């Protein structure tokens, strides 16, 4: 909307953004008109949602089928005791609305799966992967590519994490990991420990990357994956390219619609 201005309360709330050359009034208006879907409102989704809400992303979709358990509160900082045993998307919406009543929140209490992914992802500008299974990661990456939507990937394991951005045509999760690990080789995330602040770093970088994608500013973590080791306090960047023989985004793609991700990752067999 050319010539549109911000309200007085918005000028106060976003004052530190208005001072940034890369955002300013027009960038803030872009953020307010944007929509982001966060899939998984747990360890990674918590900081990603908090910082995207604080930044004034106008519509945030939160998708998660789970309810809040006590053991989540060791790292899932968007939740609190009053949300215990209630839907994660509900508790998170309440926290985010309290932080920024200026934005719209869509609570989607559902598992994102083969049946609903295309419809769901299709309604948002950017997708943030806050899930914790290979099945969901391949599903989101395929769906985002098929819809030509950018996907901000993050994952954590014990004391290590990684983050990268998949822009359609410049590589996808399959280019980085052509095959899922054999079932049982990497323990189910429910069994693995997590160092509390680790998802804070990875999820927050996912938020920053999302803001850059939405406002078209800076250099995204595209074609590079940032690897963090908390104990060594090391950060390493590994470059990767679109794989020309990738079955999804390669030169001769074989995947033109979503497949059965339970079968592909062996998640079904392992159950």
């Amino acid at each position: 909307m050319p010539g549109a201005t911000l309200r007085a309360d918005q000028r106060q709330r976003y004052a530190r953004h208005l001072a940034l050359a890369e955002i300013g009034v027009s960038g803030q208006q872009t953020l307010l008109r944007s929509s982001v879907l966060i899939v998984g409102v747990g360890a990674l989704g918590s900081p990603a949602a908090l910082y995207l809400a604080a930044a004034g992303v106008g519509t945030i979709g939160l998708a998660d089928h789970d309810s809040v358990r006590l053991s989540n509160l060791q790292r899932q900082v968007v939740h609190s005791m009053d949300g215990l045993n209630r839907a994660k998307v509900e508790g998170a919406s309440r926290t985010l609305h309290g932080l920024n009543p200026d934005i719209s929140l869509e609570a989607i209490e559902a598992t994102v799966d083969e049946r609903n992914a295309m419809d769901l992802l299709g309604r948002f500008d950017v997708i943030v992967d806050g899930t914790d299974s290979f099945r969901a990661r391949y599903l989101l990456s395929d769906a985002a590519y098929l819809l030509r939507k950018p996907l901000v990937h993050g994952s954590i394991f014990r004391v290590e994490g990684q983050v990268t951005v998949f822009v359609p045509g410049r590589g996808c999760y399959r280019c980085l990991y052509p095959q899922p690990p054999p079932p049982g080789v990497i323990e189910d995330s429910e069994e693995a420990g997590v160092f509390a602040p680790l998802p804070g770093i990875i999820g927050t970088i996912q938020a920053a990357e999302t803001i850059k994608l939405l406002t078209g500013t800076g250099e995204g973590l595209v074609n590079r994956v940032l690897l963090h080791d908390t104990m060594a306090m090391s950060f390493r960047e590994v470059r990767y390219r679109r794989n020309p023989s990738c079955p999804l985004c390669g030169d001769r793609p074989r995947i033109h619609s979503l497949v059965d991700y339970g079968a592909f990752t062996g998640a079904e067999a392992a159950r």
Partner: protein
Amino acid sequence: MIDAARHHRQRILDEVGESGQQRLARASVAIVGIGGLGSPVALYLAAAGVGRLGLFDDQRVERSNLNRQILFEDRDLGRPKVQAAAERLRRLDPTLRIDARSETIRASNVAGLFMEHDVVVDGTDSFETKFLLNDAAILTGKPLIHGAVLQWSGQALTVMNGGPCLRCLFYDPPDAGVIQTCEEAGVIGAATGVIGSVQAEEVLKILLEVGEPLRGRIFQHDGLRGETRVIAFPRDPKCPVCSRQPRITDLSRYEEQVSPRGYVQR
């Protein structure tokens, strides 16, 4: 055992274990400045199970804080930050012991701050306080986790007994007006989230005595370019506080040795 369930996913880490989790429960950490950095630091230390948190800040919540200070809500506008923060942290874990103090840290009370806590976290936005905390860490021998943020970027480092320290890298604070403030130049919330989370990791590693802290190394993050690195730095043999011939020697004589703006007196 309700508490066993709460920290289960952390207790099963080799680096933590049952004894590590108990060590965190007995620990006390001071967070100076409950703003952009202090928000994620406090949330993650509370979530991780640090038993006692001292929150120090003399400001009230303003609407312009809310683009990054994720501890607060709209309904907290005008309230003392430490009070609003304490309530939010108790909603996360009601068993936390929180000491909320609406006070400014000065040379006259900084020694007590370090004596009462196992680790101190710098979440302030003033150079004078950052250098005061650095000097107090060296003079008391207690660990300090430094952090600073501006626009899309930030840094963190850990000062431990014997140094190296912030003054090995920067002898004095920058001259007035050379570096803009967040108010003038802006700041993105996610930058404070990255630095604050790194600070929280450092605190936990020091309390647990695991991993490699950022001692003699500085973490630098440029969120706009997506660049993150850790650079080693040596102790400055002429450092005014952590070298063998220090000029800053005594917190009770701090005003004689350091100017109100943090410069070493010549």
